[in-house]
């Protein structure tokens, strides 16, 4: 038993796990935050410019749609390789945490935009029409009606987005980012046949996803005033 624990957590592995959890959280949260900042306006545009949107614009809608679809159809691992030159220009390096965050953002913001678009679509047309009948302009409708009305759904969407980003993190091993949880799992499990560490790293990933999901669901429920109490 002691030998087993020793092989799992000895030789400084405990510290490695701790660092990995922190790095994973850091990379995930930063990528998510930036993806959301980019995805929110894009999602609003996707929603608003559609033919049944509140400011229909066929050409813009088509262009945005195509761009989002193209980025989303490229598998992350391939996109990561493809945009390495771009990373060199934007963050000054192709490898390491910062470059990896850049790859995650590029891969995630179109996904986030689609999630936001779909949340906004759930808002009752009647409520928007009522706002229009009161003389609201489009900016007021977006900021005071559509986004607040969609809030619970947006929070649930954000939870899905953040766990998806977390799911991308193991691929950091490709570009030698610092030790993320997923990277540990791959390095030890795949390359060194040390399945114990792979399982522990994966378990930690699962726990992280669970925590995030619980937290987001709590807030989604708490903010939703449609629930009778």
């Amino acid at each position, binding site marked *: 038993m002691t030998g087993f624990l020793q092989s799992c957590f000895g030789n400084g592995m405990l510290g490695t796990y701790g660092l990995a959890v922190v790095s994973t959280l850091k990379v995930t949260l930063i990528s998510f935050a930036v993806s959301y900042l980019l995805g929110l306006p894009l999602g609003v545009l996707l929603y608003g410019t559609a033919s049944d949107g509140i400011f229909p614009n066929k050409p813009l809608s088509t262009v945005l749609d195509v761009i989002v679809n193209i980025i989303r159809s490229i598998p992350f691992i391939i996109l990561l390789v493809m945009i390495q030159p771009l990373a060199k220009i934007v963050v000054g390096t192709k490898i390491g945490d910062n470059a990896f965050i850049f790859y995650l953002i590029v891969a995630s913001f179109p996904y986030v935009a689609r999630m936001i678009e779909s949340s906004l679509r759930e808002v009752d047309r009647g409520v928007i*029409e009522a706002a229009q009948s009161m003389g609201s302009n489009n900016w007021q409708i977006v900021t005071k009606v559509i986004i607040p009305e969609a809030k619970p759904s947006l929070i649930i969407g954000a939870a899905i987005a953040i766990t998806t980003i977390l799911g991308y993190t193991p691929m950091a091993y490709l570009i030698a980012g610092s030790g993320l949880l997923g990277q540990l799992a791959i390095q030890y499990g795949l390359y060194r046949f040390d399945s114990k560490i792979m399982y522990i790293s994966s378990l930690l990933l699962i726990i992280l996803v669970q925590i995030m999901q619980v937290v987001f669901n709590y807030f989604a429920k708490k903010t939703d005033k449609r629930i009778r109490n």
Partner: protein
Amino acid sequence: MIELVNVSKTFNTDDGELEAVRNVSLHINKGDIYGIIGLSGAGKSTLVRCINFLEVPTGGEVKFQGVPLSSLSHKELLLKRRSISMIFQGFNLLSQRNVLKNVCYPLEIAGVPKAEAEKKAVSLLKIVGLDDRLKAFPAQLSGGQKQRVAIARALATDPEVLLCDEATSALDPNTTRAILDLLKEINETMGVTIVVITHEMKVVEKICNRVAVLDHGVVAEEGLVSDIFTAPKSDIARELILPKSAAVAEVKNGKMIRVIFDGQESDEPFISNMSIQCSAAVCIMGANTEDIGGKAYGQILLRLPDDPSAEARIMRYMQDHGTKYEEVTTPAVEEVMS
């Protein structure tokens, strides 16, 4: 106050063009409670949305206080909409805002300071009788309460006109009556002109002074409610006015007549007296009457005995009493049945 001149609205659908509204011309005066009635699909909702340009007409002109809405810039139109409020069948409250914040919304977008807006909202909620539910969310309210909040919200910007799109169609009869009373009160005390879209003749009868009957996007008939109610000329008006229960009854030999009550004493047993004095039994095929302040309003559909002399006695009785009636021919009733 509102003038529609040859207003048309055509939609381009996958199945080709759909003419929802065709050459509608109406004149709504200040202080009117104007009814627009029709069956579903008649174009009522599209027509009412042309009045505030939520639907831009494809033909004709909408004038509000003499100004053609099409001549306004988008910004001016948004400002104008503060004078033309609207309430809806589905209430359309903001589900994530409480009652007070819902009523504040139109003031908020108009740039009214928060404290002032809240004060105004509270006073309006007092008028609609909901000042004790300020912090409640729409999900915690009943349908009637939601519509009251919607009415308070619609009044927040001191509108000249209130458009009601099937505002009582989702409500039970008692709540409907209460909401209609409230609308009437608002019309009388605040001088707000009201346009009521409905498929229910009862609603028109209860509060409107003028009515337009819409059928397949065209105005079939327009005029004072009392005139149209006592002597409908178009088939569609007849269909809307005839009690629905007539459709269930079997129409056999005797003549059918429609007796109209437009303010007789409620406590006079009119049909019984007639039956006794004429010594003729009649069959009530359908009725739709209401007691308003001790006066009877509405109509009763009677089948007379298949006996010419009894029939003549009844007709004479009604003429002697100045009661309005009209003969309903069997084909007309069958038309209702189909």
